C-alpha cells in the first residue's frame, strides 16, 4: 500500500464517523429521528466498508510491507530541536484488527441502538456522540505520533464522558461522568509526561555498517544524537537508545501503563467503570466493554518495543492485570445490578488481557480482545434487551424466569455466559491461550498462572450466577412476569454477536482448541522485531494441552458450583461463609472492597478540605503584604488628619507659624555659621 493510498483510506475511515457525528448533532434535531437513525448507522457502515478495503489491502500486501505510515498534515513545528508533530497514521495488522472490531462491532451496536433509543428524545445527541466515539477510537488506533495518539486518547475519554452523562438530569450519571473524566485525565497526564520523557531522551541508534569485502559503506557509523521526535515509528526504531532495562525506560513504561490502566479500568484506577454503567446500555456495550476500555491493551501492545526493553515495568503490568482480574471477579460475585456484574466481568477479562501483554504475549492479548469484544458486546446488548423488557429494572433480584419469556435473548445470553466462563465458546480459546503463555512467562511463572485459574473459577461462578438469577427460576416481580421479547432490530445484532462468539474461536483455531491460531500468525510480524523471536515463548504442545485441560476444568468447576447454588439451589453458600474467617468476604465483595470510600477519604475529601481552607485563609494572607504597605500609609495620614480642621484660618496660622520657625532657624544657622 502506498502512503497516499493509506492516507486516503485512513482519512475516509476517520471522516465518515466524524461527518455522521456532525450531521446528527447539528441538523439531526431538526430533521428528525428517521434521518438520525439513517445517518448515524450508515456512517459507521461506510467506515466498516472502508475498513474491509484496508483489511484486504493489508492481507494482500507482501510480507514485510504490511505496515504503512502516511502523513495527513503538519500539526505543529517549532523548529529543529523543539516540539514538532505531524498528524501521522499507521496502517498495519494491529491497527487494522482494532479497526475491524471498532467499526464492525460498532456497526452492530449502532443498529441495536436504533431500537434501544426508540423512545428517547435525545436520540440525535446520542448518535452524534456515538459517531464521535467511533471517530476518536479510529484516530487513537491509527495515530503514528504520540501527540496525535494522546489527542485520540482524550477524544475517546470525552465521548465516554458525554455518553456516561447522557441522561444528564440524573445526579448519579453526572457524577459518574465526572469521575470517569477525571480518571481519564490522570491517564492523559501520565501519557504526556511519558511523551516528554521520550522526546527529551530519545537518541538515534548508531547504524553499524559492515561493508561487504571490497566495498565501503555509503553511510558510515553515525554518532548517536538527540532526535527530538514523537513519531512512533522513529521511537520504536530507536527504542534501545533509552537503554534496555534502564530506570528511564522503566519509568516511561510505567507512565504508559498508568495511562493504559486509567483507560482499561485497572487497579488502582478502576473505580470509574462500574459507575459508568449509568450510561445507556449500547454505550456500555460499545465503549465500556468492547472497544474503549481495551485501548489500554492496545497501547501496551503498540508500545511493545519499549515494554520489551523494560522487564520490570512489564512484570508490574502483568501483576496488576492479574490482580485486577481476581479482584474484579471477586467483586462481581455479589453485585446485584445486571450491568455492574457485566462491568466487573469486563474489568476482570481486561485484567487478563493486560496480564497477557505484560508477559509479552501480545498476540494472545489481542486475541482475547477480539473474542471478548464479541461476547461482551453480546452480553451487554442482551442485558439491554432484558432491561427494556422489565421496564428499566436493573436489579437481578427483581428478575428471574426470563428464559421462557425471552427465548432468543436467553439463549444468546447463555452463549455469552459460556463464552465468558470459558467453555465451548470464545473465552475457552483466548483465555486458555493467554494463560498457557502464563505457564512459562512472566514474573515468578507459573505463580500468576495459578492465580489465573482461580480467575477461571470465579468467572464461571459469577457468569452463571448472573444467568441463573436473571433467567432461571420463577419471576420475582411483576415486571419480570410480564416481560416479552424485544423486536427484530434489537435481536439481530444480538444473534449475530452470539454466532460470532460461538464460532469465531473454532474458525480461527481449527481444528484444535489450543496452540497457534490465525490471529497469532496475522499479528506476529508486528510484535517480532527482525532477528529476534517473540518476547514470550509459546508453551510446548504437551504443556499447552495440560494447561488447556486444567483451565477448562477450573471453568467447569466454577460453572458447576454456580449452577448448583443459583439454578438447582441444592447448595447454600451462606453456611460456608458464616465461618469466622470468611464472614468478612461477602461484605467486602458487596462493597467493592471499599475502594470508593477509601479514595473519598484519602484523596477527594482532603483536597476539598484544603481548597476550602485555602479559600478562607489564602487570599487574606496573600493580601497581607499590600495591606501592610497601605496600612503604614493610612496610619501616617490619619495621624495628620486631626489638624485638618477645614478652617482657612487654621491653615493660615500653621503657615505663619512654620514661616516664623523656618526664618528663625535660618537666622540661627547663619549666626552659628559665622
Amino acid at each position, binding site marked *: 500500500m502506498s502512503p497516499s493510498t493509506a492516507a486516503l483510506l485512513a482519512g475516509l475511515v476517520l471522516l465518515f464517523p466524524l461527518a455522521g457525528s456532525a450531521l446528527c448533532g447539528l441538523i439531526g434535531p431538526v430533521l428528525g429521528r428517521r434521518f438520525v437513525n439513517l445517518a448515524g448507522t450508515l456512517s459507521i457502515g461506510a467506515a466498516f466498508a472502508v475498513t474491509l478495503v484496508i483489511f484486504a489491502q493489508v492481507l494482500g500486501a507482501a510480507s514485510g510491507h504490511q505496515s504503512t505510515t502516511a502523513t495527513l498534515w503538519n500539526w505543529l513545528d517549532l523548529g529543529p530541536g523543539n516540539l514538532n508533530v505531524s498528524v501521522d497514521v499507521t496502517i498495519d495488522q494491529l491497527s487494522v484488527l482494532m479497526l475491524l472490531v471498532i467499526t464492525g462491532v460498532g456497526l452492530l451496536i449502532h443498529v441495536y441502538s436504533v431500537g434501544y433509543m426508540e423512545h428517547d428524545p435525545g436520540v440525535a445527541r446520542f448518535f452524534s456522540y456515538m459517531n464521535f466515539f467511533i471517530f476518536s477510537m479510529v484516530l487513537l488506533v491509527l495515530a503514528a505520533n504520540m501527540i496525535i495518539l494522546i489527542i485520540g486518547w482524550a477524544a475517546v475519554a470525552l465521548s465516554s464522558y458525554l455518553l456516561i452523562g447522557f441522561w444528564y438530569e440524573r445526579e448519579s450519571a453526572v457524577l459518574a461522568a465526572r469521575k470517569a473524566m477525571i480518571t481519564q485525565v490522570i491517564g492523559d497526564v501520565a501519557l504526556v509526561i511519558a511523551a516528554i520523557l521520550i522526546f527529551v531522551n530519545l537518541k538515534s541508534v548508531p547504524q553499524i555498517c559492515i561493508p561487504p569485502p571490497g566495498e565501503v559503506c555509503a553511510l558510515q557509523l553515525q554518532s548517536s544524537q538527540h532526535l527530538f521526535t514523537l513519531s512512533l515509528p522513529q521511537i520504536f526504531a530507536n527504542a534501545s537508545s533509552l537503554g534496555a532495562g534502564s530506570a528511564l525506560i522503566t519509568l516511561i513504561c510505567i507512565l504508559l501503563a498508568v495511562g493504559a490502566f486509567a483507560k482499561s479500568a485497572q487497579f488502582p484506577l478502576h473505580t470509574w467503570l462500574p459507575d459508568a454503567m449509568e450510561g445507556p446500555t449500547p454505550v456500555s456495550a460499545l465503549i465500556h466493554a468492547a472497544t474503549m476500555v481495551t485501548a489500554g491493551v492496545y497501547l501496551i501492545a503498540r508500545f511493545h518495543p519499549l515494554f520489551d526493553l523494560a522487564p520490570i515495568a512489564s512484570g508490574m503490568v502483568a501483576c496488576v492485570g492479574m490482580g485486577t482480574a481476581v479482584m474484579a471477579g471477586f467483586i462481581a460475585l455479589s453485585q446485584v445490578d445486571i450491568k455492574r456484574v457485566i462491568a466487573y466481568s469486563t474489568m476482570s477479562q481486561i485484567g487478563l488481557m493486560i496480564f497477557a501483554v505484560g508477559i509479552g504475549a501480545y498476540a494472545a492479548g489481542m486475541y482475547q480482545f477480539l473474542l471478548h469484544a464479541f461476547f461482551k458486546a453480546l452480553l451487554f446488548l442482551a442485558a439491554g434487551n432484558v432491561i427494556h423488557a422489565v421496564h428499566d429494572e436493573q436489579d437481578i433480584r427483581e428478575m428471574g424466569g426470563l428464559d421462557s419469556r425471552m427465548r432468543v435473548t436467553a439463549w444468546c445470553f447463555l452463549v455469552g455466559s459460556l463464552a465468558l466462563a470459558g467453555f465451548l465458546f470464545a473465552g475457552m480459546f483466548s483465555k486458555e491461550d493467554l494463560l498457557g503463555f502464563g505457564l512459562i512467562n512472566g514474573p515468578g511463572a507459573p505463580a500468576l498462572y495459578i492465580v489465573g485459574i482461580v480467575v477461571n473459577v470465579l468467572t464461571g461462578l459469577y457468569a452463571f450466577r448472573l444467568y441463573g438469577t436473571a433467567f432461571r427460576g420463577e419471576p420475582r416481580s411483576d415486571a419480570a412476569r410480564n416481560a416479552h421479547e424485544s423486536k427484530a432490530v434489537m435481536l439481530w445484532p444480538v444473534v449475530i454477536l452470539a454466532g460470532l462468539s460461538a464460532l469465531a474461536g473454532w474458525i480461527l483455531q481449527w481444528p484444535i482448541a489450543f496452540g497457534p491460531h490465525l490471529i497469532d500468525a496475522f499479528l506476529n510480524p508486528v510484535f517480532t522485531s527482525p532477528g529476534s523471536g517473540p518476547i514470550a515463548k509459546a508453551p510446548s504442545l504437551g504443556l499447552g494441552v495440560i494447561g488447556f485441560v486444567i483451565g477448562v476444568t477450573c471453568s467447569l468447576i466454577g460453572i458447576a458450583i454456580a449452577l448448583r447454588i443459583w439454578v438447582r439451589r441444592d447448595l447454600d453458600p451462606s453456611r460456608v461463609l458464616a465461618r469466622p474467617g470468611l464472614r468478612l468476604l461477602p461484605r467486602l465483595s458487596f462493597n467493592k472492597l471499599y475502594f470508593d470510600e477509601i479514595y473519598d477519604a484519602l484523596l477527594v475529601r482532603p483536597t476539598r478540605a484544603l481548597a476550602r481552607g485555602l479559600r478562607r485563609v489564602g487570599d487574606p494572607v496573600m493580601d497581607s503584604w499590600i495591606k501592610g504597605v497601605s496600612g503604614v500609609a493610612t496610619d501616617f495620614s490619619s495621624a495628620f488628619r486631626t489638624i485638618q480642621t477645614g*478652617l482657612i484660618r487654621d491653615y493660615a496660622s500653621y503657615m505663619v507659624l512654620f514661616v516664623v520657625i523656618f526664618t528663625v532657624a535660618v537666622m540661627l544657622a547663619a549666626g552659628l555659621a559665622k
Partner: protein
Amino acid sequence: MTLSQAMFPWLLLTAAFLFTLGALGVLIRRNPLVVFMCIELMLNAVNLALVGYSSYLNSEEGQVFAFMVIVVAAAEVVVGLGLLTRVFSIGRELDVDDLDELKQ
C-alpha cells in the same frame, strides 16, 4: 530714582509692619472679602520690600519679580472673587469658617 541709604531700614520696617497687619487680618477676620484685602496687603508689603531691595542693591531683578507678584495677585483676585460671588449666589453667608466642606 534713588533712595537714601538711611531710608532703607525704615522702608523695610514699613513693609514688615504692613505684612504683619495683613497676616493678622487673614488670621482674625471672617469676612472673605476682608481676608482678600489682607492678602493683597501682604503681597504689596512683599512688593514694597522687593522694590526697596532692588533700589538698594541696584539690580532690576527685584522690580521684575514685583511685576510677577502683581500679575499673580491679579489672577488670584479674579479666581477668588469668582468663587466668592458663586458662594454668595447660592445664598450662603460670607464666612470663611463656614466653608469647611473640603474637610468632609
